[in-house]
């Protein structure tokens, strides 16, 4: 893995700050143990260097320079998320409360103007506030207004529903995600895109588009595409790739989980047991492969998502096999034992990783001595 920090982005700058803080803590411990004591001159030089670096990074990006700021920052993020969801719900109900007392022309004007005004607010906050939280809230409100805009315009004029609205909403959410660096908006862009492609594929394979949820297989290709996009590392948007990978993985594995218990939703023309068996095996193989792939690429997001899905596949299968067959104490003991097995496997993987690191360090030392 590349140990260098990319300081061209907020994430890279934050990583560098975290690295400096960790280094300071470790240096203090080494000093306490008399392992490494820097001279006053060295300490002074190091202090000046770090202070200057932290000041310049803090001036460029809205970053947390110490642990207490980091804790506060988490609180701010949660408050911003709730704020965005609260405002969105409020606007949704506000429209429904009063739209019946406006004529169609006024309704159309209000529906079109709302997302544009929210975009204006987003631009205003981007200029005025460095952290971008208010801009993110305004952007989310703009997306909600645009969703309301098209869906209510459809209702007012009795227009036949169309899946094309999903791709327009996806485009809007994606644009706003890049403007505000918001992972929440990126998530909506991904979900709208998956809904659009799934609905389109449903119609190609002979169902009415609104029934796309009844054919889980139509989500597999969107899942693969979104997962593939997660391989692209984007400068300035390093935290976007994990979102693509997590939702790509979920869009592949959740339909497989559903089909492993409900063959009725499958396009495959095999008998029920064969379809469910096929998807059960596919679920185990794919989630295990994704964990292995995540370990190879050092993608913790993929390892975690794959592990959760593998565990769900395992437990639902255990439930299927043994819930009726075994007394409850034995069933839960089996769950406990299987958890121990998973624990042992992960410990083994962790040990192997540590040995790899140890081996790499030894080689580095040899190179240094040479």
């Amino acid at each position, binding site marked *: 893995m590349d140990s260098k920090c990319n300081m061209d982005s907020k994430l890279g700058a934050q990583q560098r700050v975290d690295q400096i803080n960790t280094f300071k803590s470790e240096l203090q411990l080494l000093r306490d143990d008399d392992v490494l004591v820097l001279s006053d001159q060295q300490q002074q030089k190091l202090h000046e260097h770090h202070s200057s670096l932290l000041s310049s990074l803090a001036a460029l990006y809205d970053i947390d320079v110490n642990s207490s700021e980091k804790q506060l920052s988490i609180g701010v993020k949660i408050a911003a998320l709730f704020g965005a969801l609260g405002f969105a719900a409020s606007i949704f109900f506000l429209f429904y409360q009063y739209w019946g007392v406006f004529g169609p022309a006024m309704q159309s004007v209000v529906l079109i103007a709302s997302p544009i005004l929210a*975009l204006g607010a987003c631009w205003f906050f981007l200029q005025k506030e460095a952290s971008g939280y208010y801009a993110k809230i305004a952007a989310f409100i703009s997306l909600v207004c645009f969703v309301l805009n098209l869906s209510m315009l459809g209702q007012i004029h*009795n227009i036949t529903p169309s899946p094309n609205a999903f791709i*327009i909403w996806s485009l809007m959410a994606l644009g706003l995600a890049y403007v505000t660096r918001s992972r929440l908006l990126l998530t909506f862009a991904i979900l709208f895109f998956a809904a659009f492609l799934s609905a389109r594929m449903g119609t190609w394979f002979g169902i009415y588009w609104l029934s796309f949820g009844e*054919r889980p297989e139509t989500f597999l290709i969107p899942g693969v595409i979104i997962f593939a996009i997660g391989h692209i590392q984007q400068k300035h948007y390093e935290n976007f790739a994990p979102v693509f990978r997590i939702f790509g993985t979920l869009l592949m594995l959740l339909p497989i989980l559903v089909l492993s218990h409900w063959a009725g939703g499958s396009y495959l023309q095999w008998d029920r047991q064969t379809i469910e068996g096929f998807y059960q095996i596919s679920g185990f193989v794919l989630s295990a492969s994704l964990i292995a792939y995540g370990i190879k690429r050092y993608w913790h997001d993929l390892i975690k998502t794959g592990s959760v899905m593998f565990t769900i596949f395992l437990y639902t299968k255990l439930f299927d096999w043994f819930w009726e067959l075994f007394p409850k104490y034995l069933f839960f003991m089996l769950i406990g034992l299987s958890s121990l097995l998973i624990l042992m496997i992960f410990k083994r993987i962790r040990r192997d990783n540590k040995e790899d690191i140890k081996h790499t360090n030894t080689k580095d030392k040899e190179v240094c001595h040479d």
Partner: protein
Amino acid sequence: MTDNLNKKLLLGLSAVIILVNMWVLAGVFLNKSEITSKVVLSERELTVPYFYDTENSGLSLRIDYRFLTNDGDGEEFYRWHSPKWLDKEKMQSLGFSEKELSLENTDSLAEKEVFIALELDGAAYQESLNKAKRKYEQTLLGLEQDEIKYAKNHLLQEEKNSSRLFAIDADANLDVLQGRFHQQNNVIITRAVISTTRWQGKSSTGFKVGRIDSLSVSHLYVPYPMNEKVKSLELRDYDDFQPSRFDVAVNIGAHLTPWISDITLTGS
């Protein structure tokens, strides 16, 4: 991303919002520019909600349609039943394959959006009304009071309450369907979703037949201030056998999209 790029992207998104809305409104305008058919529906065909949501000031009326089945005897309104004309041959002409119609096929999700003809107060409604009258007359010959009461209520419902809008035909081709009914001004054409069903009523053909899942536009929005007229009416129970209280002039446009052009209160 730089401020300049952000600005360009936000302007681009504003343009997307305006263009998409212009596209939608242009479609509405083109649809309304040509009225392909006009009908006057009543409360029987356009159902008022059973309650008003205090959080929603908008009002939509549900299009209530029926169809004749092979079962008869007042079973016309159950949506899981099959219209008697939606048989194997008709389903094949709508694009359903032999395999999709086979009883062996466990896949229950085969469905298509097609064009459907809805007839107002025509031969299908008269047949349904006559069936209710015959049933009532037959029950009068017996002595079962419950049966007589049920048949009488059913006849009252047919005469005063039940929808006179009947689905009578469907086709995958709009021109063909329009050609078939071009001389009947009480027939409107719209889109509906058709799927397969094993339920065939009394006569089993050994194949799946068709059922109407839903109309693609199942509700008609009532614009302001017309919605005030409907909202002024008292809510009714579903078994309240009172005459219709309003007439609704409905136009169908060039894109088969319906809209309400007028509402007249008719009740006392």
